[in-house]
């Protein structure tokens, strides 16, 4: 019998295993939601599809591992990685991204593609190609007659992701900068006419996205593994979530992300982890096709 079938039958014999697999996936999905929300933010405000998104996440993970190596406690690495990538985001905006905002998307795609290669290879050069992770040393809970284990780090990561997401929404709703960001997203020219320094707003948006990615990366390193070239799949995940959930709706983003996490983990378990990337890609294509078919019925195109 082929391995996928045996794995499926395992679920029948031990339904708790299914719970385990889905739960693990959902807990990881929360972090996808963060990366996707950041991508939606940059896309919505700056009209840039940030191809380098996944590499920023991975970089956040490596920085967290580095900080931890310096003796910082695991959960403090999250704000530290976020702060470091906030700064890097600002630098990237000032050095590169500001030159492509407002230009044709063809150009910003190429430029952020270049950045993604740059960062992935830089990580590879500095930290090596090995798979790494960060042990938060929190242990696990056992539930369902001790069959299902829940890693406390994963639950903490989920909580952290939710808190971060909520904080972000509150920030965008209430703060001055948040309002400026939303105004720029709606109509940059009008915002400029009303005295909003859109260039500053763009820089802040890109930096905030960096911080989100940094935090997400630190959390990922804690509950999963990272390697220099894992970023690409994160970009694709974030993109798939965004086109499924739209640019503005955090609740939908979270739902889509948790769903993706669960589906991915399920498929990874049944077919083998090496197919997880291919699955994410296939899912993206399926979502794209589904969305465009639906839009085509009302004569619209995805753009």
């Amino acid at each position, binding site marked *: 019998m082929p391995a996928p079938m045996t794995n499926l039958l395992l679920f029948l014999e031990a339904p708790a295993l299914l719970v385990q697999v889905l739960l693990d996936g959902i807990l990881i999905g929360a972090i996808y939601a963060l990366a996707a929300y950041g991508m939606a933010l940059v896309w919505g405000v700056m009209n840039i599809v940030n191809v380098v998104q996944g590499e920023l996440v991975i970089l956040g993970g490596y920085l967290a591992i580095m900080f931890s190596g310096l003796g910082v406690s695991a959960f403090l690495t999250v704000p530290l990685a976020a702060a470091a990538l906030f700064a890097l985001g600002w630098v990237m905006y000032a050095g590169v991204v500001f030159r492509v905002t407002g230009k044709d998307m063809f150009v910003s795609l190429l430029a952020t593609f270049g950045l993604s290669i740059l960062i992935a290879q830089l990580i590879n050069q500095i930290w090596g190609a090995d798979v790494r992770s960060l042990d938060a040393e929190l242990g696990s809970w056992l539930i369902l007659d001790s069959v299902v284990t829940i890693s406390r780090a994963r639950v903490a990561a989920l909580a952290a992701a939710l808190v971060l997401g909520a904080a972000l929404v509150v920030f965008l709703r209430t703060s001055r900068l948040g309002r400026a960001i939303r105004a720029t997203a709606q109509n940059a020219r009008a915002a400029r006419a009303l005295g909003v320094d859109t260039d500053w707003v763009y820089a802040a948006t890109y930096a905030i996205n960096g911080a989100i990615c940094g935090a997400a990366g630190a959390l990922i390193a804690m509950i999963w593994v990272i390697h220099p070239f894992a970023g690409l799949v994160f970009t694709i995940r974030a993109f798939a979530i965004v086109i499924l959930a739209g640019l503005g709706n955090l609740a939908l983003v979270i739902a889509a992300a948790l769903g993706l996490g669960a589906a991915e983990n399920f498929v990874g378990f049944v077919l083998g982890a090496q197919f997880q990337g291919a699955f994410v890609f296939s899912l993206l294509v399926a979502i794209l096709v589904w969305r465009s078919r639906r839009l*085509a019925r*009302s*004569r*619209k195109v995805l753009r």
Partner: protein
Amino acid sequence: MSALLEVRGASKRFGGVVANEKISISVRAGEIVGLIGPNGSGKTTLFNSIAGTHQIDGGAIAFDGAEISRLRTVDIARLGLIRTYQTTRVFKQMTCVANLLAAAPAFGGGTPALLARPERAERARADEFLFFVGLADKRGMVAGELSFGQQKLLEFAMALMRRPRLLLLDEPTAGINPTLINALMDRMRRANAELGVTLLVIEHNMAVIMNLARRIYCLAHGELLAEGTPEDIRADPRVLDAYLGAR
């Protein structure tokens, strides 16, 4: 004679905003019809509905007797219904003559046509239309380097190159040098009379549209306000009110 274009009760809403409310117009083959109305009255929305840019929320649109309100833009264009854009859209990195060749009707002819070079007659026609709109000397120039008015003329020539049966022109004289407006009006009339192109024209310049069109529809606040000959329209107090915002 039956209508070439028949819009019956077309409605279009964007969110809560009603852009077109049950608009009915009809254009007979060979006519030049005007479409006027103050800014925001829904003229371009109506064009977009007809040309298939978006889905209408209610009503029907028939071209040459066949329903087109669910067709894709490409298929509507293939039927011979071509539109120009208020913002002017040409292929900016291509030369003027290439812009015209890219608008040739031969592109509807399947793969063999795609793999053929533009025919001699097609090139000749491209040159004729460049001459027709006064851009013959800009033939090899990249379209993006033309002035706005020249791009507008180029877009008009491209539309004619496509051999349309019905041409929707969105503010053809906007941005055109005033000394050239009479020449452009003459070209529109000639396109109508000599090439047999039926015209539906959105125009803000009253002098132009009163002079050009035989019949005029006036929109206001997304609704059809009045229709009739230029004289009727000019004499209609509601039209004046709409423009002066006295409603």
